[in-house]
């Protein structure tokens, strides 16, 4: 319900568009120094090993260059995933092509449908824990690419989908252009859905292209679009309610940037022990669509 979230913003634009003059300027503000916190971002996909990154929060506002960014990663953490029966101690792995550059990856436990997984992280002298579930995966009925009206070569992926009853299903969608993107990126602005809007119904919806890093200062006319010729990979997942709340609040936060027309969205973390971030299980299904 992306449109709905924008209402207040649009109202604000009324004021800005209609009234001749408004101005924006950079300001300097004094913000009390934040405390150091550990950020944990982990996921376990169906039939895949878990991946967890452990980082510091950014200590101040300003410009970060490559060395500072690399220093965000906590490299001596102990990360353990368990399905209740066995334990998997994750191994540190590097991938300097896409974020996260340094992460911990499992070697024993692969995600299974319907199972619950616990995460334990020891970092900076503290212990953090979290729980997540991989809900049964649901397939999309069909997918196709369609050009947008008024566009020569740009369009969205369309999907026909049937939700299962009863209510309480949650979904997350990622996209990746096979040659252009280094990794799957969550659908732009709002990648999670609750079936409260469409419980048990069959309907079509658009899939907008995800952006690994959304930069509002860049005016990209192709933002959200796929282009004729793209080979598009879609990853559609079922998630549990806790993951839904986490990602929904995290996305509201990422794209609001302190927007006064939104309720300041503190992210609903599921990490216990004073950490930030989240631990999510994905009941994932993969599809390929050619934009033609």
């Amino acid at each position: 319900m992306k449109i709905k979230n924008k209402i207040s913003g649009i109202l604000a634009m009324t004021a800005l568009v209609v009234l001749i003059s408004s101005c924006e300027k950079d300001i300097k503000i004094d913000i009390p120094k934040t405390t150091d916190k550990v950020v944990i971002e982990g996921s376990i996909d169906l039939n895949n090993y878990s991946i967890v990154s452990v980082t510091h929060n950014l200590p101040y506002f300003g410009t970060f260059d490559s060395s500072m960014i690399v220093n965000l990663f906590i490299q001596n953490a102990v990360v353990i995933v368990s399905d209740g029966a066995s334990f998997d101690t994750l191994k540190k792995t590097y991938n300097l092509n896409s974020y996260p550059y340094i992460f911990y990856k499992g070697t024993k436990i692969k995600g299974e449908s319907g199972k619950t997984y616990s995460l334990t992280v020891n970092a900076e002298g503290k212990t953090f824990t979290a729980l997540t579930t991989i809900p049964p995966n649901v397939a999309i009925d069909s997918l196709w690419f369609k050009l947008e009206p008024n566009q020569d070569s740009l369009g969205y992926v369309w999907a026909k989908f049937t939700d299962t009853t009863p209510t309480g299903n949650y979904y997350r969608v990622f996209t990746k252009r096979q040659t252009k993107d280094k990794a799957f990126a969550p659908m732009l602005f709002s990648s999670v859905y609750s079936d409260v809007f469409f419980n048990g119904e069959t309907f079509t919806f658009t899939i907008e292209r995800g952006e690994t890093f959304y930069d509002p200062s860049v005016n990209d006319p192709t933002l959200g679009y796929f282009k004729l010729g793209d080979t598009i990979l879609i990853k559609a997942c079922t998630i549990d309610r806790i993951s839904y709340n986490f990602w929904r609040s995290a996305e509201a936060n990422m794209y609001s940037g302190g927007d006064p027309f939104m309720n300041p969205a503190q992210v609903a973390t599921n990490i216990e022990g004073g950490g930030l971030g989240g631990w999510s299980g994905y009941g994932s299904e993969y599809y390929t669509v050619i934009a033609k």
Partner: protein
Amino acid sequence: MTNLSIYTMLRRTLILISSFFFFTICLRAQLPKYTISGYVKDAASGEILIGANVYVKETMNGAQTNQYGYYSLTVEKGTYTFVVSYMGFNEHADTIVLNQNKKINVAMTEKVITKREVVINGVKENNNTTSTDMGKVAMDIEKIKTLPAFMGEVDVMKTIQLTPGVQNAGEGNSSFYVRGGGPDQNLILLDDAIVYNASHLFGFFSVFNSDAVKNIELTKAGMPANYGGRLASVLDISMKEGNNQKMQVDGGVGVISSRLTVQGPIKKDTSSFIISARRTYIDLFIKPFVKKSSNFYGTSYYFYDLNGKVNYRLSDKDHVFLSGYFGRDIFSMNSRDLDFKNSISWGNATGSFRWNHVFGPKLFLNTSLNYSNYKFDFDAQQSEYDIHLFSGITDYTAKSDFTLFPNQKHLIKFGATYTYHTFMPNNASAKTSGVSLDLGSVVKLYSHDAAAYINDDFDLSKKIKISGGLRYTFFEPVGPFDRYIENATGQIIDTIHYSKLQKITMYNHVEPRLSVRYELNKLSSLKASYTQNYQYVHLASVTAVSLPTDIWFPSTEIVKPQFGTQYALGYFRNFRSNMFESSVEVYYKDMENQIEFKEGKNPEDNIKNNTDNNFTFGKGWSYGSEFYLNKRTGKWTGWVGYTLSYTKEKFPEINMGKWFWAKYDRRHDVSVVVSYELNEKWTFSAIWVYATGNAMTLEIGQYVLEGNIVGDYGPKNTFRMPAYHRMDLSATYTGKKHKKYSSSWNFSLYNVYSRANPYYIYFETTGNITDYNITTQAKQVSLFPILPSATWNFKF
């Protein structure tokens, strides 16, 4: 406060009222007494005059005309000089021999030369020190018209906000705050009908067309018992009745809007009408400049207002009025690039039928039937999506207010009111590619709301005057209604269904009110007041600014009524034969059952759920002092107001249960208003306002999730926006008065030194983590730099 102490206080108040009442009635039986009563009006237009002073010179016994221009004065048999006075009008004096009850209707003539020597308080010279009223502000429309006007639109609400204790929330905020109270805690009445959203375009303009308004009165402390239902204040606005002597046309042409008012007699002296209309036309100006090929072709905004009123004097005893208001803000937006179409409209509609009846010289009755509606509509289409959102509130009210003038020492008001509310909080429907999404059925909440009151304003002794009252209030939400029961994780596990008119819950309370004035001497007095209020309607806002999307919500079995207690103390003193009036007031206020959305919750989370399941409840308290100095007469007039205040809130589920500053907490608030009347033609005015910045919640840290920057918010409302300050100037030129017509010009300069006041502050992150380079910058958005405007007003 415990129930016990409430009832103790209640009993004491009751005893106090009744004992004094009988005491003063019984103990004086000397010469026979007679009553003089009637209406006071403006001879030129036939408009009644509110708050005119009526007295007999020999004993200085006096009264004031009520809201309907009626007075009643009881004195001993004798021969008197009967005087009626009203600011800006020639004093009426007459010798009368009083040996029976007399009905005297007085038509006052306007002072011609000193017409604009009129002061903001269009009331008796020393009324501020002699009445029991505290924290009361009355405004004179003619005076307001000479003050600087934003974009040339004269605004009564803006002027009210220049008085101490009343705060503007800043540009782009549609409401005002009184003594730490929220925007929903102000009762705004237009001819007895409630106005739920009193602003156009996010508060840049109020819904009250100054040409159609006759009288404005704001009460922010010591609320008498005839008002209720809100914790903070009452803004009571009366519409003009219409000239019953001759046809009259007034109007104004400004840079962004125009106004036209037509009024005149239907039957001279008996019946008249007034119709007033206003519309902005910035959209019409902009349209020709937006090319058809433009991405934003089809984007426009305008608002309009219509006010109408007719009245008919059936006899000397009966007078009926029918009045109405209708206004809308209409915004439409197109963005071809985004394939996005959108229209938004919101506004109020009110209607009142009133009947004034005089039972005898001592008893006056106003009965009214009122209708009030506020509506917000939002429509948007983007590619295959089509969404419609709507919310609103509709009230039907019947009420009777009696005014009893038993003798010179008492002024008793009593009455009852009943309202049937229908609330529609945040409903939505949506379609994608023609298939409807299931957003639940339209939610409506119904409730009965009733009250009865009695208030006595009486002289206990020469020095002590007391206004004491009791108000009984009753509120009952009824079905049809579905209550969704959530479990601890917020999942719905059960539904309770209530059938039509089935009682869901019920609240009833007694609210004591007390104000006392102690006259120190002719020029100064001390006043104290104690007020209790219950409020059964709530405005839920998620945002840092108030918007038309904020939703009105009734008390339910989950949302307990707001409860407020206010203690106020004031010292009032006039100088230089009432040329200057000054006051110092201090107050303490306690507010229970305040509502907020839970952290991270938004109004749209009510789909297939109850909106109030997303609320969280807490308390607020506010204290402060207000200083006021007003020069009322002379070539130089104006005032200085300063407020020092502290407003805090505490919610168990917000900010980890720790108290925080309310977003409208204002440490310092200064208003300076100066007018200089150079000659009959030119008047110059200046306004300067200063206010501590709003409290807001800001990110204090950031972290990275999936390569994007996420903000880590700090404790609630610990950051302060930079202070707001601004100066406006105006010059008003009044043309020569012709026999048939007159006209004037108002030139205004808004934000003279072009201060970039913060509208909001946000962080923008640029760069790309995959390029190992990100930057976060704080940005401030401001709305208006210096803005000149000119308005031409005419009358014929």
